[in-house]
């Protein structure tokens, strides 16, 4: 047997290092459906308790929405559980095609292509579109999946400071004579700070220097912008962003599935050469069916995203008034800053005892000395849920000396 005691010991030591660095991921068990009121068993083995969830990417509250689960059930009954195939062999149902068309239309793009996850979409795209003659310029705070995708590609690469268009321009100037194509790569909403990439200014620079723009809008699709089309809509540049990657795993139902939306040649190249697309199973029928219903829901009315916007503003105002330090912004991602990692984690632990489920984030997920609790609002939160959360923050914050 090759898995010797020495190998086991080596891996155990690595895990010990992870634990000692405070980076060990301790999963909490949820014994109910995903939603605002959930039942959590934590610490492991203790009696499950009812808490309010303020850390899900369930922005529109669709994860367990009755219309969405009914559509998933319909998909399951009419089209089965799985496809047992990749798309190009026998894994494409007519509904896959319908969903891709609907999403493209929703995002204002020529075409769209589905992946198992947005991680897969981001892992696929760069290698297919760019090579050593090209340059990828990425924001330094882009999501891990974009970084991995860029690593898989032979293009030249450079990065610019977070949301810093002045720095980006310097980079464009420097690389312009050295590249066939330049592509600027950014998140639409940066998930740890809840701030938006300045896509209007980025689009201006892209025009000036003849660069393409790729935006991962996973933390925006469905709710940022007047009608929820995402960060490009917020900045009025829907027609000036070339490629959008996004997910079905957050606001749009929260199950799984990723998307690339953009020019037809791009989606066709991905269909023919995207390795995560070619070599992994088609998204299963219940998810496709549910996602089609989700696109109906977010296209028919802006009710959910409007409520989410109200909730975020209300929470920010109340927390601000209570004396907490927030990263200013307008998204439903609200970082409450504590600086010290232990303090952030103590706050989160005590808040759970008060019935509020949030998580502390510290280095290296966020910069050293900028530990925080990232609160995420949902359209499924009611005013009284938010009041209860703020009251709990105030109570624990006073106890731990964060506020007076």
């Amino acid at each position, binding site marked *: 047997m090759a898995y010797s005691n020495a190998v086991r010991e080596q891996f155990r030591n690595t895990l010990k290092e992870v634990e000692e660095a405070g980076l060990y991921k301790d999963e909490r068990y949820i014994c109910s459906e995903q939603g605002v009121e959930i039942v959590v068993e934590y610490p492991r083995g203790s009696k499950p308790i009812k808490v309010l969830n303020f850390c899900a990417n369930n922005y529109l509250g669709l994860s367990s929405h009755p219309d969405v689960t009914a559509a998933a059930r319909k998909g399951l009954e009419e089209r089965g559980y799985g496809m047992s195939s990749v798309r190009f062999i026998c894994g494409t149902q007519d509904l896959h095609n319908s969903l891709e068309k609907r999403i493209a239309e929703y995002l204002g793009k020529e075409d769209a292509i589905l992946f198992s996850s947005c991680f897969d979409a981001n892992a696929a795209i760069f290698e297919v579109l760019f090579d050593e003659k090209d340059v990828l310029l990425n924001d330094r705070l882009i999501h891990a999946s974009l*970084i991995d995708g860029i690593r898989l590609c032979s293009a030249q*690469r450079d*990065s610019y400071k977070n949301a810093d268009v002045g720095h980006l321009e310097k980079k464009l100037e*420097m690389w312009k004579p050295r590249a066939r194509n330049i592509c600027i790569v950014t998140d639409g909403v940066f998930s740890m700070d809840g701030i938006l990439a300045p896509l209007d200014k980025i689009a201006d620079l892209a025009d000036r220097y003849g660069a393409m723009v790729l935006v991962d809008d996973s933390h925006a699709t469905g709710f940022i912008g007047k009608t929820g089309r995402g960060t490009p809509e917020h900045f009025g540049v829907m027609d000036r962003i070339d490629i959008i990657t996004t997910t079905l795993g957050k606001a749009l139902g929260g199950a799984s599935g990723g998307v690339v939306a953009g020019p037809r040649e791009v989606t066709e190249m991905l269909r023919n050469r995207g390795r995560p697309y070619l070599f992994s199973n088609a998204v299963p029928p219940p998810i496709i069916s549910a996602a089609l219903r989700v696109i109906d829901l977010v296209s028919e009315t802006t009710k959910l995203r409007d409520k989410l916007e109200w909730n975020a503003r209300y929470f920010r105002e109340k927390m601000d008034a209570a004396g907490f330090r927030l990263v200013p912004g307008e998204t439903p991602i609200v970082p409450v800053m504590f600086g010290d990692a232990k303090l952030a984690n103590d706050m989160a632990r005590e808040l759970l005892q008060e019935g509020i489920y949030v998580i502390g984030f510290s280095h*290296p997920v966020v910069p050293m000395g900028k530990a925080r609790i990232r609160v995420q609002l949902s359209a499924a939160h009611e005013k009284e849920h938010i009041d209860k959360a703020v009251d709990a923050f105030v109570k624990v914050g006073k106890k731990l000396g964060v506020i007076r």
Partner: protein
Amino acid sequence: MSDELKKKILEYIREEYLEDDSMELKDDTPLISSGIVDSFSMVSLKMYLEEELGIKMTDEEASTEAFDSVNSILVLVRKKLAEKK
């Protein structure tokens, strides 16, 4: 020349990579292994040195180890400058 060169490199790194002026940067501060310089943007430091000093470094020479502190960068750069002469 040496001190001036070191000053230049420190200045460039501060300007190009540090998000925060309060962050300490010394000759032996780990740059890449500490995450101050991400491997994607190391290339701009390489290009800066090449243009500024009129040298050319191969990808093998400009390794993440060679670029991991101002001191190790100076070792490499001095070697390239000597070769130029």
